[in-house]
């Protein structure tokens, strides 16, 4: 079986090195190279895993069967359209785009070109989340009534200044964190979001006010389930890890709470370092990349589609409209 040639198209995202390292270890994958508008970064990322830096996106696409887009959020559309035009399959970092219009354009471009499009939401492969979804499917909580989720973390400027630049990221904490839980909720509830209410502020992370750092989002699903998401960058620099993701599902049979990153060791070293948490949970990124490669090989529907990415972006867009107006915003997605 020929190895699937996969390139990384823009490496600005914090996940790019992890994706490269994981792809490099997959026996049926050959790294095609790395392109980034910063050639120094491209070389650094490429050399770390023994692949090449490409001079242009076109050059990389010519050598790739599939690519992972790990650029700044604003560039997802242009890069995905280029890849689709070159007949290359796409795994696109989340959020799929900075607007629903861009997300739809990506979906259309890939469909027209007949290439596979998957949105890079790793959380469905988090093994704690999988266990939660199984428990709900088995009916352990009875009929689902309500979901409460927290996906909070440090301010991500430590992973790249663009994360907190609204022109490049598309927004702040709401853009950064809402999509993960919005997508997981759709998988748990198996219904679509028809109403979004959100509030936000810029109090957290003293001295920074370019984008919202705190946010709370309330969702209502077509089947009557209601839910909330805390997406705040509320963890200070002294927090023992980057942040976390947890979901509590409440139903007629009681409640189940899942902490996706609770599989950890508590580590104390030098006094000045404080405590840190080291995860021993299964690598969700590895399973997500495996699923992408398998979908490309079999030509099947990827487990996280472009439409899934679009639905999450629509929810983010509605959240910003709600923040601006102070009122709930209605959505009417198909399904």
């Amino acid at each position, binding site marked *: 079986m020929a190895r699937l040639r996969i390139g990384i198209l823009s490496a600005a995202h914090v996940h790019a090195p992890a994706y490269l390292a994981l792809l490099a270890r997959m026996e049926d994958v050959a790294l095609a190279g790395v392109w980034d508008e910063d050639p120094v970064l491209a070389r650094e990322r490429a050399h770390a895993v023994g692949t090449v830096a490409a001079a242009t996106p076109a050059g990389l696409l010519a050598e790739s069967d599939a690519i992972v887009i790990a650029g700044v959020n604003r560039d997802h559309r242009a890069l995905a359209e280029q890849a689709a035009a070159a007949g290359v399959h796409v795994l696109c970092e989340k959020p799929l785009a900075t607007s629903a219009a861009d997300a739809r354009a990506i979906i259309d471009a890939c469909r027209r070109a007949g290439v596979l499009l998957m949105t890079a939401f790793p959380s469905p492969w988090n093994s704690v989340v999988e266990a939660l979804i199984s428990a709900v499917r088995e009916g352990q909580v009875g*009929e689902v*009534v*309500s979901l*409460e989720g*927290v996906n*909070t973390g440090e301010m991500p400027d430590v992973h790249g200044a663009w994360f907190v630049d609204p022109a490049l990221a598309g927004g702040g904490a709401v853009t950064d964190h809402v999509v993960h839980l919005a997508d997981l909720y759709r998988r748990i509830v198996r219904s679509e979001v028809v*109403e979004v*209410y959100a*509030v*936000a*502020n810029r*109090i*957290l*992370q*003293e001295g920074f006010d370019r984008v919202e*750092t*705190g*946010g*709370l989002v*309330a969702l*209502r699903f077509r089947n*009557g*389930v*209601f*839910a*909330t998401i*805390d997406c*705040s960058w*509320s*963890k*200070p620099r*002294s*927090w023992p890890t980057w942040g976390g993701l947890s979901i509590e599902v*409440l*139903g*007629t049979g*009681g*409640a189940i709470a899942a902490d996706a990153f609770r599989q950890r060791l508590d580590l104390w070293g030098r006094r000045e370092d404080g405590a840190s948490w080291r995860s021993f949970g299964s690598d969700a990124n590895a399973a997500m990349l495996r699923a992408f490669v398998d979908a490309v090989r079999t030509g099947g529907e990827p487990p996280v589609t472009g439409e899934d990415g679009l639905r999450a972006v629509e929810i983010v867009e509605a959240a910003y409209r709600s923040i601006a107006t*102070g*009122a*709930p915003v209605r959505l009417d997605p198909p399904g």
Partner: protein
Amino acid sequence: MSGERVGVVGGGFMGGTHAAAWAALGVPVTIFAEDAADAAGVAARTGAATAGSLEALIAGATIVDICTPTDTHAPIALAAAAARRHVICEKPLALSAADGEAIVAACAAAGVRLFVAHVLRYFPEVAEAKRIVDEGAIGDPAVIRLKRAAFRPRKPAGHWLFDPARSGGMVLDLMIHDLDFARWIAGDVVSVQCRSAANERPELGVEHALAILRHASGAISHVTGSWAYAEPAFRTSIEIAGSRGIVAYDSEEARPISSWLHAAPASGQGAVGIQKSLTREDPFRDELADFLGAIREGREARVSAADGLAALRIGLAAVEAARTGRVVDPAEVA
């Protein structure tokens, strides 16, 4: 010692708890309950005297401590104020903002003190969280998460607690604790959004609600109230994230004693779940001691009448928001 004498109205869980606390504080206490057997039971347990009527109770007391179902708060408080007795009223102060304001106005006109028993402010983890915020340790409060997840009170169908016309429902009875706590931390609330299972899916008989508050300070709060967890859950959590740090507490993580016993004792929860702390201090006793001290010394207590009224307005706004799907300003509720 000034000669305060307390008349407790109501012989349920809270009446019994308050009577015991007054007795522990050495304050003479008399109890009256609609059901004389309830009053006699509390009297036997606490050493309280009993009164034959509400009028007799009020006549013999200097402080009237109202521990009755919420729909009776207003008439009893107004009667006590008319007799120029200080009033301590269980939360929520009343079932409507109009009634709450009438109680506040009557007490002010009579020149008597009014305290609303938001006992949560006297729980040690809550008081410590407030101190931490006041010390400036986390900077300006920004995003607050408060949770109170209990089992459905083990009361018969038709009990007043389950009748929204008498208790205001779970939101006004239980969630109001954290609505007051959020306001204590981050100041006045300017809008409330809320979804509740009772409104979204009334056929399921589940009492569970999520509310989002906006404060005038710009802070935002997420509050969970629930009677939908399995017994004996009484889970509470606090997370206050600020401009410079975060303070957090979760009753599930903060268990000072764990046990794995072959012969497990009962959970210790009564018919209505309550928050428990393994501290020598008793929040109910500390609360009443603060109110008593405020009366004796003419000072403010940790919870003012205005706080009780503001919490009621936020609670009513949450009820209205859950009913209508609108975002409600607490100032506009009737």
